[in-house]
């Protein structure tokens, strides 16, 4: 009985105040639309940045003519005595030159007549930021300047310093910017919706005053407004999601087949995105209505 009454009251208010309700709904629609586009974009960007970062590695070049025992010793050194190493791959020089040939640079090596490439350990760090520590561990800075190595079988340790530093700082900036934008957008959405709700409530503050004088409790007055906010939020949210769905099917899916960035493996899946957006639009609208009403309830 109660719930039915509140629901009928909410519907009555919606239809009687069609224009403000429509404005509120349009606000929710636009906001959800923007968020719905932005969330996957943020995730794709962060995903791409992370993917780039995962390519950070260091090469440990061994001296020419090392024995199997020395190789085993260095492997043990890297894998068990060096912190922050996630994985180390041994690339013998035969394999390295095969890779070079595969990349189309074979003729240069043919000219040389012998394989100039060293045997190499390729080290992947547990976190991209730790690559410098690994290098310092295996090849500490000498007091006299330059670097020494900790094992006589190691010729040199390189982490492709320039590339690595660029990747690390660029991706860090991208991630921070995206996070900031996401926070700003969320705040803007909430403020926008709250403001719209407050405007439409302001038009009805006389009504609230009368209800209070007749002896309605705060929650008796509030529930229809909260329900109304939920309805408006749900309507706006559903429409925005429909639009997003159309865009996804018509534009993004065909493109995703061709561009790896859009199909970055760790973007949110569409069903979850829908659920999050719908819950957010309904929740924010309902809570916004309930809170905005407080001002007018103080009679």
């Amino acid at each position, binding site marked *: 009985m109660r719930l039915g009454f509140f629901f009928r009251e909410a519907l009555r208010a919606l239809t009687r105040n069609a224009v403000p309700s429509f404005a509120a709904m349009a606000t929710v629609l636009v906001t959800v639309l923007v968020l719905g586009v932005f969330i996957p974009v943020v995730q794709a960007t962060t995903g791409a940045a992370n993917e780039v970062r995962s390519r950070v590695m260091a090469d440990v070049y061994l001296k020419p003519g090392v024995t199997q025992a020395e190789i085993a010793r260095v492997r043990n050194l890297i894998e068990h005595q060096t912190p922050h190493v996630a994985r180390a791959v041994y690339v013998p020089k035969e394999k390295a030159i095969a890779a070079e040939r595969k990349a189309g640079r074979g003729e240069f090596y043919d000219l040389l007549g012998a394989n100039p490439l060293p045997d190499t350990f390729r080290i992947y760090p547990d976190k991209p930021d730790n690559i410098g520590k690994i290098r310092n561990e295996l090849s500490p800075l000498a007091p006299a300047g330059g670097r020494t190595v900790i094992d006589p079988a190691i010729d040199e340790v390189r982490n492709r310093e320039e590339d690595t530093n660029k990747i690390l700082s660029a991706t860090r900036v991208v991630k921070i910017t995206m996070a900031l934008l996401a926070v700003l957008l969320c705040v803007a959405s909430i403020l926008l919706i709250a403001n719209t709700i407050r405007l439409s409530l302001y038009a009805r503050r006389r009504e609230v005053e*009368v*209800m209070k004088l*007749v*002896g*309605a*409790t705060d929650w008796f007055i509030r529930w229809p407004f909260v329900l109304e906010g939920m309805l408006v939020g749900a309507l706006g949210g559903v429409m925005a999601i429909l639009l997003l769905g159309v865009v996804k099917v018509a534009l993004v899916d065909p493109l995703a087949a061709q561009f790896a960035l859009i199909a970055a493996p760790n973007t949110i899946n569409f069903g979850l995105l829908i659920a999050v957006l719908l819950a957010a639009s309904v929740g924010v609208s309902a809570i916004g209505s309930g809170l905005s009403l407080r001002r007018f309830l103080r009679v």
Partner: protein
Amino acid sequence: MAATENRPRRAAPAPRRSVLPPPVPGAIVDLRSVTKRYSKVDIGVEDVTFAVQPGEFLFVVGASGSGKSTLMRLLIKESEPTFGSITVAGHDLATVPRSKIPYYRRNVGVIFQDFKLLPSRTVHDNVAYALQVTGGRRREIREKVPDILRLTGLSTKLHNYPDQLSGGEQQRVSVARAFVNHPPLLLADEPTGNLDPETSIGIMQLLYRINRTGTTVIVATHDKSMVDRMRRRVIELSAGRVIRDEATGRYST
């Protein structure tokens, strides 16, 4: 006194019980030394003391700004007295907590000069709303609302919206809404202030009929002819003070 303590500028000293006049037994409304100051110089009512017995019909008269509306606002606990105590139907209003104010208001019917109807509801729904807030069942609403609308002569306007009615009819709706719960006390703040003399008589007769059923009615008004015609108890306010209280008075002495 919880709510008064929130007011930043409280001009009066803390209530001293010994100063208050003794309560009047059996009274439905009992005001004792009620003072309301909006600021140091702006006085709503000052040291107002009177009691109303159940079933009385009381006019509160006085010029604009004499404190009539302040008195009405105090009686529905829309504002708090700075000093003094108000007892309505056995409830000391100072002890009614904020959350219980709606329940208190259901025992008091109120009528205003500007009607204060809900513009988006029909006559029927406006009256029904007063029952719905108390959790009235649909059957109760179906029985009571047509009854009260017949009493107030609005049976044919059931499905009209307030803006489709004349001023007198709108005031009848607001009387119907105030009385549909059969409260023991009915307050009317300038009920005929916006109406022509003939319509006013109709409204007054309606209030009189309601008074005859045993409901206490307090009318704040500056409608001289009405007060003179009815010959009821009159309390006159001037600058917030009671200057006259007569059992069967006229508007002016």
